[in-house]
Every structure is written in C-alpha cells, then in structure tokens.
C-alpha cells in the first residue's frame, strides 16, 4: 500500500463518513472496496492474473455468503441490487481495457470483455446453484472450508505455487519454464480466508447471525483492513456498520462522529509515521538474508536483528493504525491488533498483545476445540501433554500461516515451546509461596528481568522468521551468541 493509495482511501472514507447518506453508505463502501481490491492488486507476469485474482476474491466471498445465507435475513430486491453492483464493478474494471485515458485500474490490461462476461456468467451460475441448495446442506460448508484451505496451502507452499504458476503460464501460452512462486501475489487472500473460515465455522456451529449480501461483502472485502487485517468478527463488524447507517438524530451521535473523525485522522497520521518513517527507515538495515551472510560481528548482528524486530512491529502496527483510523472515519471500530507487545513481561502476555486478532482466531477455532477434545476424550491425556500439544501445534499453524517452509515451522515451534515452558514455570512457581514472596519483594527487578528475557526470546525468534534458510538462521544465532 503506497501513500497515494492511502490518500485516496482517506478521501473516500471521509466522503463515506460525512457526505454519503446512511441508506447509501453500504453500497458506497461496497463499491469502493470492490474497486480498491483491483487497484491494490500487485502485478504478476501471468497474463490477466492481476484481474482474475481480485475477481476470485469477490467470487469466493459471494460463494461463502451463498452457502451461509439465511433466507429470512435477505430481501431479494436488495440481493439483486447488490449482485448488480458486484457484477457492474467487475465489468466496469474490465471495460477500462477499452477506455485508453483511464486504462487501467489493474496493473496490466484486463482480459477481453467476452471472457469476463463468460466467467462472470459461470460464477453467477455456480453461486445461484449453491444459493439454492445450501439451506440445510451440511456438506457445502465443509467443501468451502477445504477449498479455502487448499488455496491457502497452494499459495503458501513454494513448490505448489510454482507448479500452479507453471500450469497457469502453460494455459495462457506463456513459457512455463520461468514459473516462480512469486507469480501468484494474491493480495489480501490470507486475511480474506480467515474471515471466510470464521464465517463458515460459526455457521456450522449455529452461531452466525444473518447478514445481507451487501453487509457480508463489505465485511469480507472492507478496503481499510483488506491487505493487512485486523481480522474482525463478522457480527461485530456488521453491528457497527448497521449503527453507522442510522440517521443522526441526537447531538451525542454528532459528537461521536466528530470524535471518531478526529481520532481516526490521528490514528492514520500515527500509522503513516510508524510505517513510512520508522519502519521504512529501519528496513534499510534490518536483518535480511543478504546482510546476515555479510555480517560477522556479534554487536552489529544484534543491531540488525533489533532493527528487524522493531521494523516488523512498526510496519505491522502502522498498517493496523491506518486500518483502524480509516474504519473510524466511516464509523466502524475495527479491533486492535497490538497492545505494546514488546513491553510485556512474559511470552503469554506477548501473544495476547501481538497480532491479537490472529491469535484470537486460532484460539477460538483451533486451540480451544482441540484442548476441549483432548480433555474430554475417553482416555484423557495428562494436563501438561494437552498444553504441550495445544500450544505447540497452534504456534506451528501460526508459523505455517506465514508460509509453508522450514523457517516458519521452526519459528512456530520456537514460540510453541516457549509458551509451554512459560506455562510449566508458572505452574511450578505458583505453589512455592516463599519464592513467590521473594519475587514480589523485588517487583521492579523481576519485571525488568522478565521483560528482558521475553524481549530477547521474541527477538532472537525473529531470526527464523527473517531468514528463509534455517542453516543461515542457525549461523546467525551463533554469531549473536558471540561465536
């Protein structure tokens, strides 16, 4: 996301928040989000893929809505209007191919119109069938979940991405020998997939409230949080969205709007500073595979690693500030993703304050069900084993979410084992009152020590994250250790 994107988003959010009447606001946000996902999509060497990937995001979103829709919540008229907006935007973006002065919204020229019309027609047919057969069907949500997970695995695995790219290149008549995993930069897919998985799982467990199509697409593709989260819950987002549509009747509501705007702008400015000033400056000398090979001094290796550690925080939390700020401008309070994580005094607290919405997602949809299942099984395992399995596998999954490779696997294991050790330490210390009292008496010193241990543990863990080659990462850790 560039500064130009940001300024346009800011303008659109201000217009949506202040000038668009409540009844039109969802349609406006929906249209803007649909257009922006095309605009944000990075270029790819595979012909027309930068058009088809955002289109696939829209298709997946509508498909999940069709599977999870609850008929009583939807007026057919509104559904048809929304569907028309969606199809209209897809065709409009495609038509820019023929309008030379404004070509193109996508990085490269969109495909011919007849291809778009045929594909849209096919997609609409599939969605109509699913819409028709979904009520009461228990198989379709599973199919959707496995499809999303399958896509996720393909995109996050280097060999599978490369093979897919080769196949796509072959089918578009391009040389497939040059296929690379970098050919499939499906922007926002990681976050979109989490939102859709959350909806599907809540639907399966009967917890999903009814949404209209426009509300659902706006939730899934909401432009401020599309690229880097946070991963909001659908019912919370739609609740805010509905509230923001109500006409302004009381002075308090106006006051809130002014406050929201002021706070939103403040968050955006803070986010821009964090991302474009601090993070981008630190990025110049943050640890990467190139400088890790070239650095042999322990002191300077620590400097590079600290720069990486701070850079990843400021970059990500800067994006979150921008997303939260933009959300505020349109009256939507997106959840926070960070709560001063580097100041926490143990690893559990760190993970409660780092990428909070991701951790909550895994807690809700993986850790809790898994530990519940292990606890209530016929032959329950010892508590420590359940904790080890739960924490280790959760963190491994979080690691692999960043990419299916050994370095992310090790990074996940690093944190999983770290959390387990912290848990065992806490359990060990709890009954030892004397030790507890000693620690309490040296509160500041203990806190300082705890903070240092936590920060160093997290920061050294970033080595696995920053360097794709585990051998290089291990060598780097040895240099950090003074070798």
């Amino acid at each position, binding site marked *: 996301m560039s500064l130009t994107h940001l300024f346009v988003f800011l303008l659109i959010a201000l217009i949506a928040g202040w000038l668009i009447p409540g009844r039109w606001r969802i349609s406006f946000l929906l249209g803007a989000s649909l257009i922006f996902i095309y605009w944000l999509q990075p270029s790819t060497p595979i012909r027309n893929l930068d058009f088809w990937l955002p289109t696939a995001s829209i298709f997946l979103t509508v498909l999940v809505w069709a599977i999870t829709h609850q008929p009583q919540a939807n007026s057919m008229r509104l559904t048809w209007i929304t569907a028309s907006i969606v199809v209209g935007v897809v065709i409009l973006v495609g038509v820019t191919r023929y309008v030379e002065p404004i070509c193109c919204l996508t990085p490269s020229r969109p495909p011919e119109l007849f291809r778009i019309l045929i594909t849209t027609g096919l997609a609409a047919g599939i969605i109509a069938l699913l819409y028709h057969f979904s009520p009461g069907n228990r198989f379709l949500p599973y199919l959707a979940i496995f499809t999303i997970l399958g896509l996720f695995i393909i995109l996050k695995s280097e060999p599978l991405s490369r093979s897919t790219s080769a196949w796509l290149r072959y089918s578009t008549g391009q040389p497939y020998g040059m296929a690379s995993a970098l050919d499939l930069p499906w922007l926002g897919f990681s976050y979109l997939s989490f939102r859709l998985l959350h909806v599907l799982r809540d639907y399966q467990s009967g917890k999903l409230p009814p949404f209209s199509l426009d509300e659902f697409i706006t939730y899934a593709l909401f432009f401020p949080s599309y690229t880097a989260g946070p991963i909001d819950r659908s019912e919370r987002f739609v609740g805010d969205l509905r509230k923001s549509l109500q006409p302004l009747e009381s002075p308090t509501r106006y006051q809130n*709007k*002014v406050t929201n705007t002021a706070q939103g702008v403040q968050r955006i400015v803070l986010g821009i500073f964090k991302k474009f000033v601090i993070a981008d400056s630190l990025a110049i000398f943050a640890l990467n595979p190139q400088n890790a090979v070239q650095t042999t001094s322990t002191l300077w290796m620590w400097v590079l690693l600290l720069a990486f550690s701070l850079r990843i925080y400021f970059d990500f939390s800067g994006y979150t500030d921008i997303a939260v700020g933009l959300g505020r401008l349109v009256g939507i309070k997106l959840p926070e993703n960070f709560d001063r994580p580097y100041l926490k005094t143990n690893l559990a607290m760190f993970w409660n304050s780092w990428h909070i919405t991701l951790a909550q997602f895994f807690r809700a949809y993986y850790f809790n069900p898994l530990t519940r299942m292990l606890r209530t099984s016929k032959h329950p395992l010892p508590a420590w084993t359940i904790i080890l399995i739960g924490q280790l596998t959760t963190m491994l999954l979080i690691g692999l979410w960043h990419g299916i490779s050994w370095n992310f696997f090790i990074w996940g294991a690093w944190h999983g084992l770290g959390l387990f050790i912290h848990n065992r330490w806490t359990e060990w210390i709890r009954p030892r009152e004397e030790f507890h009292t000693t620690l309490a008496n040296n509160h500041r010193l203990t806190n300082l020590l705890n903070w240092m241990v936590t920060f160093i543990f997290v920061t050294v863990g970033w080595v696995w994250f920053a360097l794709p080659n585990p051998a290089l990462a291990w060598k780097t850790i040895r240099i950090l250790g003074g070798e």
Partner: protein
Amino acid sequence: MEAKTSQTEPDSLKENGLHFGIRVSIKALSLFVIFNLLFAVFYPPAAAKRVSAYNLLFPGRQRLPYGEIPEKSYNISLYDLEAMFASHELSNRNKPKDEYRIILIGDSSTWGFLLTPDQTLAAYLNREQISLPHNQKVKVYNLGYPTMSLTKDLLILSFAMQYQPDMILWPLTLESFPYDKQLFSPLLQNNPGKVRGLIKDYNLNLDLQDPKLKTPSFWDKTILGSRRNLADLFRFQLYGVLWAATGIDQFIPKDYEKRQEDLPADENFHELAPPKLNETDLAFEILSAGVSMARSSPVVFINEPIFISQGLNSRIRYNFFYPRWAFDDYRRLMMEKSSANRWYYWDFWDSVAPSEFTNTAIHLTPNGNQQFARLLAQVILSVASSTISNQ
C-alpha cells in the same frame, strides 16, 4: 419541540466540528509553508551539513559516497560535498603530528571500481607502511570519485585542502582532459556555485554560463524541492549501520563484462581527429590550477596505467578509450608541460600487464593495484623526502 432541538444542536456541533477541522488544517498548512520558506531562506549552512553519523556512531568511510545500487552497495551517490566529506575517515580526527598526509584524487580507478575498500590504491599504499625522515608516517586518503573530469578532481581538491594535506597524488588519464568532459560529472552539475567559483578564481577555459551548471531555484531550496536530496542524505546515514556491520560500500557483481579487447577501427578521439593533439585541445590549465591551489604541498601527477589491447584494430587503438596517436601525443604534451612548469610527473601508462584490468581500460584488479601502489610508493618516498629536506 424535541425534534427542533435535535435539528439545531447537531447543526451547531457540525459547525464546530467543521471549524475545528478548518482551523487545524489552516494551522498545519501555515506551519508547513513557514518551515519550507525558512528552510529555503536559511538553506542549511555548511556546519549543519557536516553533522554526520559517520565518525561518530559508525566508522568513517574509506572513500567518498558513490553507489549505483544502494540496497546492495550500502552506499548512495550524494552531491553535497560537506556531507560527503563528513562521512569520510578524513574528517575523523585532527591531523596527528607524525602523519604525512597524502590525498589521492582521481577517477573511478582511484576510487576503486569493482574493488573492496581494502583493495584500492590508497589501501595498498597504506599497506606499504612508508616511513619518512623525522619519523613521519605516510597515510593516504582515498578521495577519488567516479566520472572522468579534471574539473571534478579540482573541485574535490579545493574541498580537501582544509584537511592540510602534505602531498597531493593525482593519477590522470587522457579521458579526463577534453573540454567536453569537464562539466559532465553530476558532482559538478550539482555544485554550480562552487564550480563557477573555481572557473573564475583560476581563470579556467570553461563557460560560466554552461547550461549543465544549473543554479537551484528558490523552490529547489525548500524542504519540498530538496526532499530527494534530504531523503538520500538520511538514507546514507542509515546505511552507515550496514557499512559498519559488513565493511561493504560497493556492490561487486560476480560476473561483469570484461574490458573490450577487439576495438573499432575509429581513429578519432572525442571531436579530435589525427594526426596531432594540440595543447589547447586539453584542459592543462586545470592541472596548473591544482598546483596553485595546493600552495606549498607538492602535487604529483601520475599518468595512470592503461589497458593495452592485442585484439582487433589494436594497431589503431590502445583500447576502447584511446586511439594510439592521441594517447601518444597526450603523453608527449604531458611531459613537455611538466618540464616547462616543473611539475612532479611520472608516467606509468604501460606498467601493469593487460591481464590486470577488469571491466574498462583503466580499472585494475587487486593485484594490478598492488603493483601500481609499489611503484607509487617509490614516488612518494622520493618526492616527500626531497620536500621535507628542502624545508
């Protein structure tokens, strides 16, 4: 009644909110304009530009900043001489009493293209550990800078004089002499005031109004107008971390195109045709200016080694740069001028084997540089000893 109240109160709040927004925007805009104007009026003085993280947080650089691929070379081409020198190890400390300070100026071969900092001519000269009478130790500073122009060398020398050099070593090559090359360097084009000063002070045969010397407008001096230069300066400071961590200041590709062996059958040199070079074809007055500028410090001119091709058309040309007649004539003229003006001059044009050249006819391999340094060490010893004994 209630409805009326709720209609009017939001209006006033809306007005307040709007006024607040307008007030903040106007204040922000005014401050932005004021800062820009102040910046342009009091365009950062030299002292401000000398503030550098180098020699403070990071070791000073061993050569002047120049970088074509910053993310790989950890270096950026800056054009502000104050900032460039502030990053150099030369600015690190006052001159020690026992130091015999030699400033090495010249083109990319002096700077050390395709060479690491410890493979440059200056580095090899320092490794020679030359000791002079009165226990003075020779320390050579690399102030070479890529691009071939004597005026560019003179500009750097004019700046380097504040660092009290005891000797100036100035490797030369014919390609730096033609008048059409003189203002070609971006370093000169970005320092128009200083270059005009040199042209005036030393009566150089260059056009003061040359369009290549663009005087910055008022807009260029604002923060907005100079944002690119400011950003580069800031990034250059940050690259200091990687310079300190890795010692890398240049990206050296594993494979590069080797110097051209087979040559075109072209006898022309720039706009000049055979059979003879005239004294007025080449900017010799810049060498005289350098000698005047250096005052009592000896300026030693060196005709640097060139690649001598054995390939196609090598009877016509020595290499890609030079037809034989032009280079031979240049050597003759250099010799004549040196004798007439009593300049220190050594000609090492063929002293390094052709195999020791890298991608151009003047860039040397580490081994070639070492050979060249050994020859120069003798020159330094000879000139320094004679000047010290004369004092």
